[in-house]
């Protein structure tokens, strides 16, 4: 059984989800060099080179000034705003000894321990977190 194929449009029905970046083609295009830098840190030799000279290493990647600044300052949310994707930026975090859960503690502004406690208590509830209109900010 085949479903009716929807004709793709320019409309983004996922843009009203609060506190979320959907890594779509537009974000992928914007974040390309940033993400390629991040993924390079998967390999030890590259981690060593980056850690020895961060600015020099970043010169190899033609990212925007804003992206470069966000990398150097480890502004984790700013990296996502500028087209970074979590599976990529987590490589930069891993280089710094920050795992996924601790990175989430930083991105949510909750701090590592409060975030871990929230997860142990069952995580962030869906109620009140479906639509941007349910959030005061964002």
């Amino acid at each position, binding site marked *: 059984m085949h479903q009716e194929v929807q004709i793709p449009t320019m409309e983004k029905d*996922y843009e009203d*989800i609060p506190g979320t970046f959907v890594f779509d*083609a537009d974000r992928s295009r914007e974040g390309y060099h940033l993400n390629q830098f991040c993924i390079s840190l998967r390999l030890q030799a590259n981690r060593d080179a980056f850690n020895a000279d961060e600015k020099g290493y970043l010169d190899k990647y033609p990212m925007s000034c804003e992206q470069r600044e966000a990398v150097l300052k480890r502004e984790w949310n700013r990296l996502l705003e500028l087209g970074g994707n979590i599976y*990529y930026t987590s490589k930069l975090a891993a280089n710094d000894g920050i*795992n996924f859960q601790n990175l*989430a503690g930083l991105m949510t502004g909750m701090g590592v321990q409060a975030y871990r406690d929230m997860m142990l208590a069952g*995580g962030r509830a869906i109620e009140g977190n479906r639509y941007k209109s349910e959030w005061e900010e964002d």
Partner: protein
Amino acid sequence: MARITAGVGCSHVPAIGVAMDTGITDQPYWQPVFEGFRKSRVWMKEQNPDVIFMVYNDHCTAFDASCIPTFALGCAAEFQPADEGWGPRPVPVVKNHQKLASHIAQSLVLDEFDITIMNEMEVDHGLTVPLSVMYGDVGPGEEWPALVIPLCVNVVQYPAPTGNRCFQLGKAIRRAIENFDEDLDVMIFGTGGMSHQLQYKRAGLINPEWDMRFLDMVVDDPVAASQIPHVEYLREAGSEGVEMVMWHVMRGALNHEVTEVHRHYHVPASNTAVGHIILENRI
């Protein structure tokens, strides 16, 4: 002839692999996660499949942003566990049934699924964690008990393939396997999920009611499950929850009628709801 015997749905949370690799599975945090796989490991030993067809996603490991195939089938002789930024997992090299993999590749394209063929590929936690939870500790000097054919699905860059496309692909994979002239028991895994969001201010989202409904639908109403739109996964199950589309490949490869042998659900493993299900074809 080769046949599909059963399907396994399974989360592939990297921290589960880390817990096994560092020997902390008995700690109170992890004990309930692994308790739910005890029965599964007994079942795996009894079933002892010749081949596992593993539907998983690569987490920017084998594929960087320069090349993003929607479906990529592993056709290499073997696949090394990758360094994902914290060193490779201490698990065996994954060995392929190369002849079956290349048969499936050929069959799928003629069946109008235009997959990418991977003759070199490293594999990440998305593939090795499900093997670890189902088989238990297997050291790097040993061998996985089954050969493994990897199928990578893009779920990193939106949009992932639709649930319907994944479901139909599962059917095509079954057709290919059942036309392979060797007596083989093949088990299919659909991995990922369940609800989780790893990024930005809504990180930590967990939706157990939605997850349970998804599990029920996958078992009893798989066609309806395959019609769930992407925006529902993103909104209800978190931005990374969309990887559950991969379960539909597994389900599509099974009979319409299945027997649920086992189910396990636990919150949390790191940022994620762990979901696991075993389905046998009802004969």
